[in-house]
């Protein structure tokens, strides 16, 4: 093991860019900026690395989306994930075993046929498979009742902890200032711009809930990036900017490790179950929980455990004796159209949004961080920014339905 994952010593008085949030997005945009020569960047993480959704998600990476705006970000992120281990000098455990979406009635089967046509017209080589082929792809699958499934072999899984650790290490190597246990508590404003960021300083061992109260340190800056995940709305409010984002809890469990037996990620469209086998051999499973109330909560529920266990044994009956090892919760940062918010803020142009990814932020982060870095650098982003800008939620705005939101 070489290199460091955070910086030490006092903060500088001034940075070109301050990034609020040390997750996959905050560190990702800092890395893109540093690679372009802008290394005068401070990344603020209010807790330990991986405390937020970047350390709590299931690691799914898929191009199978139902709208163009999500598909493009996800599709073009996959090659970037494929090269990530080499670029970071850190193994991110990417495995392309595909995603298999299961439809158990004619209506959902028709919807899958429609999205497969949409994928194929837009550079995603998914295909519709019948229950027999689904059974070949997943020999342990209970294919009874399956009408059709969609399969894209280029989809896969990644180990989120390793991605964030690799990004942090590379950021520090490139000269970025990465500070854990340091949050942003306020912005100094002047003429509709942020001119400074109030930070907490202090570190407490093993307790992310407290700060040591050693006082606030202000740093000046030209640009602020809001990459605070489920806390993004609060961070934006510090600058007087209103985000339409809503935090929603999502739970996951992991089982003991097994020999490799499950190649693709399984998704059951009846209930939002997803299940993959990670590179350590564990099953990682989540499921949609109807009636989940908005708010940031990391509490675990037994209702989830029961629901996900029943749903999982329905599609994979052979794993009944496999033991659940651990469960936890994180929070999605959900926007009204399930698309991220990227780019400058109306009224506060130098507050750049990089949030609202609605549960798929990790899998699209290679692209979203690249786009936001391009905005800051004054370069042309690889895609049109308009569908992702905060000002899209204006009068007459209509959400385009995203059919492939799961979990």
């Amino acid at each position, binding site marked *: *093991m*070489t*290199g*460091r*994952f*955070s910086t*030490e010593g006092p903060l500088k008085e001034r940075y070109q860019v301050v990034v609020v949030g040390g997750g996959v997005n905050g560190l990702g945009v800092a890395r893109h900026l540093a690679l372009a020569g802008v290394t005068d960047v401070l990344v603020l993480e209010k807790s*330990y*690395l*991986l*405390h937020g959704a970047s*350390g709590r998600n299931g690691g799914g990476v898929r191009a199978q989306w139902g709208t163009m705006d999500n598909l493009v970000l996800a599709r073009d992120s996959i090659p970037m994930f494929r090269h990530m281990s080499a670029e970071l000098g850190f193994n991110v455990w990417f495995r392309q075993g595909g995603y298999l979406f299961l439809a158990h009635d004619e209506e959902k089967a028709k919807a899958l046929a429609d999205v497969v046509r949409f994928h194929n017209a837009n550079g995603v080589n998914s295909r519709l498979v019948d229950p027999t082929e689904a059974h070949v792809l997943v020999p342990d699958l209970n294919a009874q009742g399956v009408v059709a499934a969609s399969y894209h072999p280029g989809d896969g899984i990644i180990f989120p*902890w390793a991605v964030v*650790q690799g990004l942090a290490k590379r950021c520090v190597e490139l000269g970025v200032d990465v500070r*854990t*246990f340091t949050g942003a508590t306020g912005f100094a404003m002047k003429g509709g711009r942020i001119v400074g960021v109030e930070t907490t300083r202090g*570190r*407490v*061992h*093993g*307790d*992310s809930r407290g700060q040591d109260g050693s006082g606030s340190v202000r740093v000046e800056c030209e640009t602020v990036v809001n990459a605070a995940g489920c806390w993004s709305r609060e961070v934006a409010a510090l600058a007087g900017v209103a985000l339409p984002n809503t935090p929603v809890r999502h739970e996951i469990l992991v*089982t*003991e490790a097994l020999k490799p037996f499950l190649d693709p990620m399984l998704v059951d469209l009846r209930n939002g179950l997803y299940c993959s086998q990670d590179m350590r051999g564990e099953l990682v499973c989540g499921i949609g929980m109807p009636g989940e109330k908005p708010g940031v909560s990391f509490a*675990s529920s*037994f209702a989830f*455990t*029961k629901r996900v*266990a*029943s749903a*999982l*044994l329905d599609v994979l009956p052979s*794993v*009944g*004796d*496999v*033991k*659940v*090892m*651990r*469960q*936890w919760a994180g929070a999605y940062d959900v926007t009204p159209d399930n698309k991220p918010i990227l780019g400058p803020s109306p009224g506060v142009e130098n507050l750049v949004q990089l949030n609202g990814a609605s549960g798929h932020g990790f899998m699209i982060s290679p692209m979203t961080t690249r786009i936001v870095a391009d905005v800051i650098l004054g370069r042309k982003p690889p895609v049109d920014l308009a569908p992702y800008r905060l000002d899209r939620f204006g009068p007459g705005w209509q959400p385009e339905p995203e059919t492939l939101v799961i979990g």
Partner: protein
Amino acid sequence: MTTPKRIVCACEDVNDVELREAIEAGCADLESLKRLTGFATGPCQGKTCLTLARQMLAEATGATPEAVGAITFRPPVQPIPLRYLAGQEGDEA
């Protein structure tokens, strides 16, 4: 002469040299140390390794073991077969 490595986390095969390197790389709290080395993420969920890791972190940082604290413990307390959680019939373990 080199000091032999000692196993700290038997579930995930993490030894004391790996923990020490992670601490030197900037892990100054147990949650970071857990996420970088994988200690306490196996079937015992830290029941055997947490005390040792806490002791190492305390010695390295000069903090007391009490101040180092503990990781967040996750349910279940003991690993439980999925079929019990799904409410299916079966022999008691």
